[in-house]
């Protein structure tokens, strides 16, 4: 293999892992469906832990119901508890949609949730309320896969053959609410009619004001989801999404909606690909205001290239973001030292191949990596910047590699929900943070370095001795 070394996991130990569990991703995706509540079928610890993880990242209330299985149900099956849970969720939350995600326990027990739901529907008068169940055993995948699987299940639940219409579908991976808002702004600027799923830009980043509502306003309306099958095309930021989980592929195969799979619009090239696609789809020219934004980004890239060229970043996290970040780094002359994803089956290494074939240095590419492996690789390659979520804090704490927080989860800084990195403007914001982190590191060690150099050059230390 040219261009990069790929290492898959060989150790038994998963020490300081880089990924989380499947239903967690499902919870986020469900937040992007209007008026929905997530219910994790399992013991309550899972949903409590998932609430914790999400609250810390989004700094927002996160309600996740649980069927609260105990020892008895673990042995005899969880149907009765699931039914009570559904009753109570409906009564207290009055949702339009309930998404049931299975925990490892429920999956190991072999509960047939689909059937439970069917029986529940037939003997309870729940009217318009939709119940969508998704199988999300964590031993089958990470939160990344959970996010895709749930998004796909939501579409599959609503999609019926629909009349063709001029709108397009936009399917996003696990990105920040701020990123979703920026993507919507670009779509609006290009004058396209679209349905974006899952749209948690408001539900997971609620502005202050008004009476507190148990279910946050916002989310993709279910009527719009039902029409996705009649769209002109689907844009999916899902190069790393496995085919079996791909929502866009489902729409293409089942309803003939052409799928345009794009990388996340991060970086100049990434955003160009997206904007170019929108231009083709809309037949509209790119507005001047957007060209200005592009110009500002180019200007910054030109101005900072010397600083950025000195970066040897270690990039880690969810594969879709990691791929886009690697692209961003490369176009700014920062050759990654390490590129690591926590999942497998994403095809990340193969995707990176063409990008890396001309790179000056050979990055280490890791799949299914834990942080000990990542740290080890980062040290070996003298990485000087850690780009990714909060899990990488040990790279800074233990190895002194300065960190740039982006991705999910962010729990040691505020504003995880507001981190903006897509589009020309978003990229510029990210790039400035990137460059400034390098500069800060440089200035903080500059004096000491200079002093040491001086001492040695002029022989001051020798003279003293």
């Amino acid at each position, binding site marked *: 293999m040219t261009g990069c070394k790929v290492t898959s996991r060989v150790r038994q*130990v*998963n020490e300081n892992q880089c990924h989380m569990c499947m239903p967690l991703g499902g919870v986020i995706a469900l937040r992007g469906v209007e008026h929905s509540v997530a219910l994790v079928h399992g*013991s309550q610890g899972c949903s*409590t832990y998932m609430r914790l993880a999400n609250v810390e990242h989004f700094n927002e209330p996160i309600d996740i119901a649980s069927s*609260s299985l*105990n020892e008895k149900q673990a042995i005899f099956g969880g149907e009765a508890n699931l039914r009570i849970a559904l009753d*109570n969720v409906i009564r207290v939350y009055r949702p339009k949609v309930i998404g049931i995600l299975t925990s490892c326990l429920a999956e190991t027990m072999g509960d047939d949730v689909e059937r439970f739901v069917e029986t529940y529907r037939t003997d309870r008068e729940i009217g318009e309320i939709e119940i969508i169940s998704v199988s999300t*055993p964590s031993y089958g995948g990470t939160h990344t896969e959970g996010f895709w699987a749930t998004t796909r299940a939501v579409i599959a639940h609503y999609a019926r053959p629909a009349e063709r219409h001029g709108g397009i579908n936009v399917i996003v991976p696990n990105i920040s609410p701020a990123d979703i808002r920026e993507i919507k702004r670009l779509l609006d600027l290009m004058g396209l009619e679209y349905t974006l799923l899952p749209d948690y830009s408001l539900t997971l980043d609620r502005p202050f004001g008004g009476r507190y509502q148990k279910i946050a306003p916002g989310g993709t309306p279910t009527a719009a989801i039902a029409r996705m099958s009649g769209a002109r095309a689907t844009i999916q930021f899902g190069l790393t999404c496995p085919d079996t989980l791909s929502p866009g592929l489902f729409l293409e195969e089942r309803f003939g909606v052409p799928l345009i799979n794009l990388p996340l619009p991060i970086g100049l090239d990434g955003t160009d690909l997206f904007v170019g696609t929108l231009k083709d789809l809309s037949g509209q020219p790119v507005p001047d205001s957007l060209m200005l934004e592009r110009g500002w980004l180019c200007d910054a890239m030109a101005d900072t290239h010397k600083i950025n060229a000195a970066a040897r970043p270690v990039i880690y996290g969810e594969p879709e973001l990691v791929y886009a970040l690697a692209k961003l780094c490369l176009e700014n002359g920062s050759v990654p030292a390490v590129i690591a994803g926590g999942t497998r089956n994403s095809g990340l290494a193969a995707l990176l191949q063409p990008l890396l074939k001309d790179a000056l240095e050979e990055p280490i590419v890791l799949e299914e990596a834990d942080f000990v492996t990542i740290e080890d690789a980062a040290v070996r390659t003298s990485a000087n910047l850690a780009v990714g979520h909060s899990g990488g804090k040990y790279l800074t704490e233990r190895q002194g590699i300065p960190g740039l927080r982006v991705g999910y989860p962010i729990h040691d800084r505020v504003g995880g929900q507001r981190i903006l990195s897509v589009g020309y403007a978003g990229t510029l914001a990210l790039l400035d943070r990137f460059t400034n982190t390098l500069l800060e590191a440089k200035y903080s060690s500059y004096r000491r370095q200079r002093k040491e150099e001086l001492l040695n050059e002029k022989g001051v230390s020798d003279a003293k001795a």
Partner: protein
Amino acid sequence: MTMTDVNVDELLAPMPDKVKKNRRKHIVKKDLSAGSCQQIEANTRTVPGIITQRGCCYAGCKGVVVGPIKDMLTITHGPIGCAYYSWGTRRNKARVDDRTPPEEIYTTMCFSTDMQESDIVFGGEKKLAKMIDEVVEIFHPRAINLCATCPIGLIGDDLGAVAKAAEKRHGIPVIHYNCEGYKGVSQSAGHHIANNQIMERIIGTGTEKVDGKYVLNILGEYNIGGDAWENERLLEEIGYTIGSTLTGDSAYVNIRNMHKAHLNLVQCHRSINYIAEMMETKYGTPWLKVNFIGIDATIDTLREIARCFGDEELIARTELVIERELAAVTPEIERYQKILKGRTAFVFVGGSRSHHYQFLLRNLGMEVMVAGYEFAHRDDYEGREVIPTIKSDADSKNIPELHLEPEPGIYRPPHLHLKMSKEKYDELVASGVLNDYKGMYPDMVNGGIMIDDANHFETEELVEIFKPDLIFTGIKDKYVTHKMGLPSKQMHSYDYSGPYTCFKGAVTFAKDVAHSLSTPAWKMITAPWEQSKTEQR
């Protein structure tokens, strides 16, 4: 509405009848005219679908009790999530000391067998055994903990057998905890399981001499934000030696000698009372319920500890330290009282803090109107005297109770631990100081509400009724509170502040609370051009 008018039934009105009936029993209003505490239902199953704050048995065992033991390497056997979520979430600090060098500290690391589909189908014992071999090879830990998660019990992996075989291979203790998440009804089950194993496998196995005239253990202190260090500083200054804490900043090498101590102090009753009781039975070590949260509470606690030993010199030194600390903090406390006086609060935390913090808040001039525990038992509300009347149900029955006997040759009657005569000891016990906990009820304000396992819905209703100034709770509720326009303070991790214990801690706490309440932001929420509208309304 005055506090005593609050009608609990109205609060629950929108709930389905069955839920209402269930939840009604978990809520008790303090009524001085009624005399003793009305029975509260606690430690029973959460209603499915009602969004609870509770966690699982694994969280109580690994996350709370065994995770913080700094020199033990803890492996979570299960799928990835459980381990990930319990990684570094509790801020129990640990530091290097003369017996534990940095390379022996594992508390900031997270180890998981990351089970995959094939492990679930074919069993995960081999993977676990291999993982133990690997960590031993890489880290050479002094001892290892193995914690089970939900799927483990179902697929039937025998953790005990894996542990035993690994002990043989490596010659170090490998202690397993069958703390599958579905056991019991909350974290509480996990505390108990952890207590049992620590008691059986660690305490009493040490043979080193523990020097010190008065050796204390501090049980149920998890060193959030450095709390334990502040306690230790004071106690050591008075002349005590700290044998070990359980389990904040604790080390295996110290825990195994805990039976050498003269007195056990119990801070968090819920999570650790089992060990206190079992040590009393097995070694004769008396225990004292303490509270280092709050200035008056700390003073009372320090005086009571000194009284337990009845040593005049100790008593005198205690007074000296109290006087000095008090003098140092009083002016600052008075300053914050000006901001905090008359403010009201809710406290919803685990199984002890909701009681402890009432003392500190009272010192600051604040009153707690509603207090609740997530996973407490009846005795934490009503006092230990109700323990004999608590019926065990299916959920509590499946957690083994250890039936211990006095350990021949090591057991010493409690009065000898305290170096006093049997008569004097009996007097002390009769005065109600030792080996007892009276619960939260006696310290609630009249008309105040105790609520067990409160959910989001109830919290919101209670906020409407009482309109408190501040809510002390966990992070899961924090942002709901903020969205309601109320400040909240996180009491599990202290919002990255602390320590809050003893005298200096009280000042830090007062400062944090004052900051929350005096932030101008709360007043600026309404836009100036909308202000007149609200006023008109």
